[in-house]
């Protein structure tokens, strides 16, 4: 007989230094809890498969949250139920990592039902370990969606009644109906035979992920003697009597043989494809735009807030700015925010232009504020960064007293643009946003007037009168004297 040693896996920390209290060698789990058994099976599998260094656990709320005390892997905590969404992000941004989503039933089958179904439906290449003990463990034994009929819990003291609380959810069966998952199975850890069965399934699921086969889901029926209010040694019997008749242990779906490797993450679209889709004029490079060489280059992420009332073209100005950025081979994001009114309500949009990919489209600190009316100027001016820039529509904004203290303190450059008057002089007040853009291009020369012309021609190709009007408005704004105010 060869030497075989079974002992604590190397995938666990030697000392659980993250665990509070003095006992850093034992788990937080109650006597007879199934988590420890499952942890050991996973740890052994990732060690044997050589995955430990590249594995990230995503653990949400519940006793499963403690996985990060024990596993010497990457660990990410997720908000309650959101582990599959977080796991999706981790896996897609690190396609060569291995992601294990470790969730309990109160988490996965209640607050997280949406996340798990959609991650499964997308066929994310992750492994979900679903620990089902038919109760909320950590919070003190409340009824879970998986609690059995007639099961007495802290919140169903007379037993679960299907007329009031519905039937226990069979998550594996539900997920197995979806097309994308490649492996869906239910197993248990209530006795050694089933533990060894679970061991095999966990390995199979992790191997599937290694082979980029797609989404695997292992539901493990597990003991919670504390909240079942039985002794640990009676947990096996409790499970056999109550859980096993309702929750069938079987492999519900296994298409690993036919499954082709998942294509996630898909290669990014080329700028040329985006330009074509949006029917924008195409420039091969940033320089290839008509010979002008005075253009500045956007060197860092620049955040805009464009605000006014509905009908002033606030949102379309933001979108137009993004299109100018796209044809100049920059990255851009745009999020609109507006009230229910189509005209007359307030509207604003957040725009980010950047030479690099943009991580978040949210604009909190503003580099450049474009304000079309007084309330917008007042509302957003204090979010402008030190030495930032404010363009404001000085045709209708006369009173700057409210913003001046902040503007002076932060050394903000304040630029008045007679935009509404420019538009009115052309006989069309809708031109206010383009007039503003004309002046912005003058002060902020990252784009060319001619590029804007080309975009306008494409945009209004069926309305030549509007093209002319817009071009004129653009020039009225551009030719306006710089009115660097006051400061």
């Amino acid at each position, binding site marked *: *007989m060869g*030497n*075989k*040693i*079974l*002992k*604590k*896996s190397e995938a*666990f920390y030697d000392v659980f230094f993250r665990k509070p209290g003095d006992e850093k*060698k*034992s*788990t937080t*789990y*109650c*006597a*007879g*809890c*199934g*988590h*420890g*058994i499952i*942890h*050991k*099976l996973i*740890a052994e599998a990732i060690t044997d498969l050589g995955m430990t260094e590249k594995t990230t656990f995503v653990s949400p709320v519940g006793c499963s949250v403690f996985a990060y005390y*024990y596993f010497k892997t990457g660990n990410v905590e997720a908000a309650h139920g959101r582990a599959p969404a977080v796991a999706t992000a981790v896996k897609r941004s690190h396609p060569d990592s291995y992601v294990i989503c470790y969730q309990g039933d109160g988490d996965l089958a209640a607050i997280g039902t949406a996340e798990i179904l959609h991650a499964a439906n997308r066929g994310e290449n992750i492994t979900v370990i679903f620990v089902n003990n038919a109760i909320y463990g950590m919070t003190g034994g409340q009824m879970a969606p998986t609690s059995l009929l007639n099961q007495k819990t802290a919140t169903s003291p007379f037993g679960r009644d299907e007329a009031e609380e519905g039937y226990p959810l069979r998550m594996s069966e539900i997920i197995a109906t979806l097309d994308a998952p490649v492996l869906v199975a239910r197993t248990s850890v209530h*006795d*050694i035979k089933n*533990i*060894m069965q679970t*061991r095999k399934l966990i390995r199979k699921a992790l191997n599937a992920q290694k082979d980029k086969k797609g989404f695997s889901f292992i539901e493990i029926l597990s003991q919670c*003697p504390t909240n079942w209010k039985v002794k*640990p*040694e009676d947990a*096996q019997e409790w499970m056999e009597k109550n859980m096993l008749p309702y929750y069938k242990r079987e492999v519900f779906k296994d298409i690993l043989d036919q499954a082709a490797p998942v294509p996630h993450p898909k290669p990014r679209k080329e700028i040329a494809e985006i330009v074509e889709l949006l029917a924008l004029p195409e420039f091969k490079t940033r320089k290839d735009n008509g010979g002008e060489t005075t253009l500045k280059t956007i060197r860092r992420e620049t955040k805009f807030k464009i605000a006014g009332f509905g009908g002033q073209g606030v949102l379309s100005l933001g979108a137009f700015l993004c299109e100018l950025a796209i044809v100049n081979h920059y990255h851009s994001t745009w999020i609109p925010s507006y009230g229910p009114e189509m005209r007359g309500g307030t509207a604003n949009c957040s725009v980010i232009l950047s030479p690099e990919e943009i991580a978040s489209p949210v604009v909190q600190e503003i580099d450049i504020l474009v304000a079309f009316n007084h309330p917008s100027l007042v509302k957003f001016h204090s979010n402008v960064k030190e030495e930032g820039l404010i363009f404001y529509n000085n045709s209708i904004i006369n009173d700057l007293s409210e913003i001046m203290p902040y503007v002076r303190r932060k050394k903000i450059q304040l630029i008045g643009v007679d935009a509404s008057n420019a538009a009115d002089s052309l006989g069309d007040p809708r031109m206010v946003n383009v007039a503003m853009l004309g002046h912005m291009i003058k002060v902020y020369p990252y784009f060319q007037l001619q590029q804007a012309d080309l975009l306008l021609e494409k945009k209004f190709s069926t309305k030549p009168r509007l093209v002319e009007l817009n071009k004129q408005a653009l020039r009225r704004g551009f030719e306006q004297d710089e009115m660097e105010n006051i400061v």
Partner: protein
Amino acid sequence: MSHVVIKKELCKGCSFCIKACPKSVLSLSSDINNRGFNYAEYAGEGCTGCGFCFYSCPELDAIEVYS
């Protein structure tokens, strides 16, 4: 020779290992450990090194099996 090592201070006395052992060479102590649990004990002989006790133990480091 195959044998099992039980770290008695880490044992919480759930007795899963005792149930899993095909040779019935594990039992629960009459003593209690520092944490207040009766703990699993190995009789000292009869272990075949099957590892069932290791896999059924919910503690990560309470049982080691040598074979």
